[in-house]
Structure formats: structure tokens, C-alpha cells
């Protein structure tokens, strides 16, 4: 029997921003299988023109309400690259600590509040407050800790205040750092429970081979700056990010699309795992093995699992950073900044994948030209091609419109898209 299927999702729920899914199968033939971004464009690259370097990080943080710390850090790195500023060791550690806080906050939000309801057959996390209070409380504890961590190190989780060109303007004292260390230590138990919980999730058995792009680890699991690498063997310098992204405009999307060696590529936790798993903290590597995550994994639904693995890594690595900061006894983490004409690029691994900011400055420290390439922008074409492949693999006899709609929605959610970001 030839199947007929019809899925039409206008403004998909439980994702950041506005996107539509359209699938049409007639007599067993796929007529349409699309993922389209319809978010309103904001033209940040144009707004940045003429802005002073001290406001670039503040403005670009507003590209995204979830990964504003990542945007701010990429912005600072681009500006510091242009001016030839080298930040202190303590500032670099504090920034990485803020980055871990953001990764934790964003991954916990996604795994528990946005993705998990699909795996337990609920429309949202709200009914779980009564049905599964212990799970919601656990998620709230982890998210709360991550938010307090960001507040302490970056000044604020959403739209950071103390991450500034030249370093970090406000250094947490040793009492605050010790309290945070204790809280991180206690969260290991919650993460252990979370691992057991995610084992009960039925991850769809779907595979489409693709290319994975991320920072390249040299000595550690990379988050801020360094060389760029793809699983197809492409390697570039940070400043050659354009050759790694190749953005182009699609007629149906307000987000641009990108490509490298194939028709699309993927970025994010799964890409980082696939390219850099050998640098994970041993405990995170153990959890990955426990959850059946093996490189190179081409099942996009496993991004949910990779995010939890990264949470474990971030907790352990944050404890290491705090110990080093306590030993160093830092009170000041800013170096002087002198603006000059030139260009700079900053690449940072934010929760949803690798992010690039690129600025050209005049000699007064004002921006002449700016370019930002967003992780979800890089993922959108890959999601679109996954969608067709998913329909090919699952759009068979016995499939219903409702089941296919859920599968397609889960596929998009697995990428944890940040759609407003991708249309910045």
C-alpha cells in the first residue's frame, strides 16, 4: 500500500524562535520535506557599524537570550584579536568558568524542559511538576546552580555585565568560589540520577551521515578559540572561518544556510564529541560509554545525550578551574586596552555549536564592518536534509501524520535550535 502523509507545523513549539515543518508524502512519494526559518531579521551586523568597541559585546549579547555569554565572549575575543590584547591567565580561567556555566544552564534547559517532555509523552514540563516532582526539582537544582554560577562570574546569566574587553571586571571572592565549588560537588549526584533518567528515553534509531565542524582540541576539550576542524578532514585557522562556513541565502529562509565538504554540516555538542571526545574529563567519557555514545555518531537524536555528557565534563572542569583560581588568589583580572585599526576574529563553542564574530575597526576603536556566523545558521541546512531522510526511513506503512509530526518535531528539537540567533 502506498502511504499518504501530511505534516504542517506552523511555529514549532519548545524551541527558541520561529520555524515551520512541512512534510507531504503522496502515494509513497515524498513531495515535500522542509524545515524553514521564518523569524524576523534584526540586522545586527548593520547596527554594529560605527559602534564603539566597549559596546560591541553588550550589543551582540542581545543576539541571544540563552547564549548571551557565548556571544559576548566571541565578541570580546574578536575585538582583543583586532587590538592585539592578551588577557591575563586568571581572566581566561574566569571566562572559561562562565562558559561552563552557560553550557550547563543551556543544556539542562534543553534536555529537561524542551526535549524531555516528548520522551515521556507530555506537551511540556508543566504537567510534570505534579506528576514527577522529584525530576523537576532535580532539573531546577541543576539549572539554578548553573545560573548562580553565571551570575557570580559573568555578573548576570542573560546579558552578562562583567565580561569586558581586556578581561573580567568583577572577580568573585574566595568565599563565593568555595561555595560554588561545594555546590558543583553536590551536583554530581544529581547528574548521576539524570544519566539514569536519560537511559529510559527511547532514542529514535535514525542515521544520516554528515560532516561535523567544531574547534580542534589540542590539549583540552576546546571552548574558546583555536583551530577549526571538520570530521571530513578539513582544518583551518580561526581567521579563515569563512572558508569553513560558506554562508548563502536560501529563498525560503530568513536564516542563511552553510556548507563545507557536503550539502550540509552539523555543529553542537554531538559535533564537539565526535571531533574531540579524547579530551573529555574521564568521568564524562565514562558516562558517554555508559549511555552508548560512540564516535563517530551520525544519529542527530544523540545530541541530547552528548549535551548531558558535556554537563558532566563542565562540572568536573569547573571544579578544576576554581581550585586553580583559589590557588592563584586573584583580585584583579583586567589589562589596559588601546584601540587601533585592524581586523579580528573570535571563535567560541557555545551550547549549540561553534560561533564566529568578525569585526573590522577604525583607529578610533569604532566598527567599520561586522560579521557573525551563528551555530543554528550552520545547522539549519543539515536539519532540512535530515528531515527528508527521516521521512524516507520512517514514512512507511503504519506511520500516521501524528507520529510523523512528533518525530519531525523531535528531530528539530534534538538540535536545540536557537532560531532568533540564526536570524540575527
Amino acid at each position: 500500500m502506498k502511504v499518504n502523509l501530511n505534516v504542517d507545523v506552523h511555529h514549532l513549539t519548545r524551541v527558541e524562535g520561529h520555524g515551520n515543518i512541512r512534510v507531504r508524502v503522496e502515494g509513497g512519494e515524498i513531495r515535500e520535506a522542509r524545515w524553514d526559518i521564518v523569524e524576523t531579521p534584526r540586522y545586527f551586523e548593520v547596527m554594529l557599524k560605527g559602534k564603539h568597541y566597549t559596546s560591541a559585546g553588550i550589543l551582540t549579547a542581545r543576539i541571544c537570550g540563552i547564549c548571551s555569554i557565548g556571544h559576548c565572549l566571541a565578541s570580546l575575543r574578536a575585538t582583543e584579536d583586532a587590538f592585539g590584547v592578551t588577557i591575563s591567565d586568571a581572566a581566561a580561567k574566569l571566562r572559561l568558568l562562565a562558559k561552563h556555566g552557560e553550557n550547563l544552564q543551556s543544556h539542562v534547559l534543553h534536555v529537561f524542559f524542551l526535549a524531555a517532555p516528548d520522551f515521556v509523552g507530555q506537551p511540556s514540563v508543566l504537567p510534570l511538576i505534579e506528576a514527577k516532582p522529584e525530576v523537576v526539582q532535580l532539573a531546577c537544582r541543576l539549572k539554578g546552580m548553573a545560573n548562580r554560577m553565571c551570575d557570580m562570574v559573568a555578573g548576570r546569566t542573560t546579558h552578562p555585565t562583567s565580561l569586558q574587553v581586556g578581561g573580567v571586571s568583577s572577580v568573585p571572592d574566595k568565599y563565593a568560589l568555595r561555595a560554588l565549588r561545594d555546590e558543583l560537588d553536590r551536583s554530581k549526584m544529581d547528574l548521576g540520577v539524570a544519566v539514569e533518567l536519560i537511559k529510559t528515553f527511547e532514542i529514535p534509531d535514525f542515521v544520516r551521515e554528515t560532516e561535523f565542524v567544531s574547534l580542534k582540541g589540542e590539549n583540552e576539550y576546546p571552548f574558546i578559540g583555536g583551530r577549526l576542524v571538520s570530521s571530513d578532514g578539513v582544518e583551518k585557522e580561526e581567521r579563515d572561518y569563512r572558508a569553513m562556513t560558506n554562508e548563502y541565502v536560501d529563498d525560503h529562509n530568513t536564516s542563511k544556510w552553510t556548507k563545507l565538504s557536503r550539502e550540509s554540516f552539523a555543529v553542537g555538542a554531538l559535533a564537539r564529541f565526535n571531533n574531540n571526545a579524547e579530551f573529555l574529563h574521564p568521568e564524562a567519557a565514562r558516562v558517554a560509554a555508559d549511555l552508548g555514545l560512540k564516535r563517530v555518531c551520525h544519529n542527530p537524536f544523540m545530541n541530547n545525550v552528548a549535551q548531558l555528557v558535556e554537563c558532566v565534563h563542565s562540572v568536573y572542569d569547573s571544579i578544576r578551574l576554581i581550585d586553580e583560581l583559589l590557588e592563584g588568589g586573584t583580585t584583579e583580572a583586567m589589562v589596559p586596552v588601546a584601540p587601533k585599526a585592524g581586523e579580528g576574529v573570535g571563535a567560541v563553542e557555545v551550547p549549540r555549536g561553534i560561533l564566529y564574530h568578525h569585526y573590522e575597526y577604525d583607529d578610533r576603536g569604532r566598527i567599520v564592518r561586522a560579521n557573525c556566523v551563528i551555530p543554528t545558521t550552520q545547522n539549519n541546512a543539515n536539519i532540512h536534509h535530515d528531515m527528508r531522510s527521516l521521512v524516507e526511513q520512517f514514512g512507511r506503512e503504519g506511520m500516521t501524520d501524528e507520529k510523523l509530526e512528533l518525530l519531525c518535531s523531535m528531530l528539530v528539537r534534538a538540535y536545540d535550535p536557537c532560531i532568533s540567533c540564526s536570524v540575527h
Partner: protein
Amino acid sequence: MKYLGIEAKRPRIGVFDFTGCEGCELQLANKEETLPAFLNAIEVVNFREVSSVRNDHYDVALIEGAITRADEVERLKDIRDRAAVLVALGSCACFGGVCRLKNAYDLEAANREVYGNKPKDTLPARSAKEVVPVDLEIPGCPVSKAEVERIVQHVVWDLNYRFPVYPVCVECKQRYSVCMFEKGHLCLGPITRGGCNAPCPSSGLGCWGCRGPAADPNYEEFFAMAKERGFSEEEIAERMNFFGGFEGVL
């Protein structure tokens, strides 16, 4: 929900996002220690970013983001028709926020620069009240969840809420922060509406005025003081126009 045997009103709330970063919506899910109590005090019936339930019968509509495209104008009008109370949540909805910065540029040229020969639909950014009547504005980039909680407490117990009339400076002093002017930085704290608990000056960033003007701000004295400390009118104007709350002042 009961307190002293009195049943509270539990308003049915819809949350709707327009052009912005969705950071203000995210604040609604933050402050985890009181999140269950917060969610118990209201009934969330429509919140796309958090839930797949879509119910068009709500008392209060929270609007996030600026209005920057024709379809958003229609959507906002439809929500206005359905909601008894319409609340602008965050600086983008209240003033246009950073989205408004694009209005200073030629939008056709902006479109060409970003999208080449495939331009996308866009309009100059507007606040919610420039499109439909707005009943309450909660400013901030992002909004302060503690302030949102205070407002919700007032709503469920049927009390009038009054925003602080004092500027950010008051809360900054309450946190024993060193004045940003003393550190050599420009700060809009003396003229910006308090209520945020001064997160920026307390961590080494001068206030950028995201909450708009305090009641009866003394601009003249502020400009004189800032200029005396070496800040140019251009610098002050650029800062005041960043989030749109002081539009037309400088």
C-alpha cells in the same frame, strides 16, 4: 492557591514572542528556588517556547520583542483583541530596545548588505504601544524576574503595583558598590528607573539605561556632571539611545 483562607485570583497567561532574543521569556523560567510557587500563582495557557499546548483563551498576554514585520502587526492586533490585559515585557516591547538601533540605517541598504539580492521583509522597529494600546510596561534588558514576581503577587491579590520612582543609584548604594563615575566610567544610574537592583554597576559596568527614565529625572544636572567628568554629549547621547527608553531626550 490560598493565603489566610483567602482564594487568590489565578490569571490565565499567554506569552508571545515577536522580534527579539527571547531572553525575557527565559527569565520567567529562572529564579528556580521560587519557580514552582510562581507557576502555581498563574495558569500558563499559551507559551510556545515552553509548551506545545496552545490555548487562545487568556486574561493576560505578555508581549516580548519589538514589532518589525507586517505579519507581526496583525498577530499583535489579534492578541490585543483576545486579551483583557496586555503587558509589554522587556525593553524591546516597551521601547523597541536594541532592535530600534537599525532604524538609524537605510533598511534597503541593510537588507542588501545582509541578504544580497534576496532581501527579506522588514519594517522599522516599533514598540508594542506604537501598534496597539498597552496596559502595563515591565522594562529591562532583560526584565528582572524578582520584579516580575512582585508584579504577579500584586495582580493575584488584586493590589495596585507601583514601580519605584527612584533611580538605579539608590539600589547601587544599597549594595555598597563604588560609584562608576568614581572609577572613571559613564553611568546612567542617576537618571534610570530603579527596580533592577543595579546588577550592572555592582559588577563593574556603568548603567546603560535599559529600563528608561526614573520619575522626574534631573537631566540638566546629570549632563553637567557627566560633562564635567569628561564625557562628551555624543557619548552620552549614544548611551541614552542604546535601548530606546530615553528616545527624544538627546
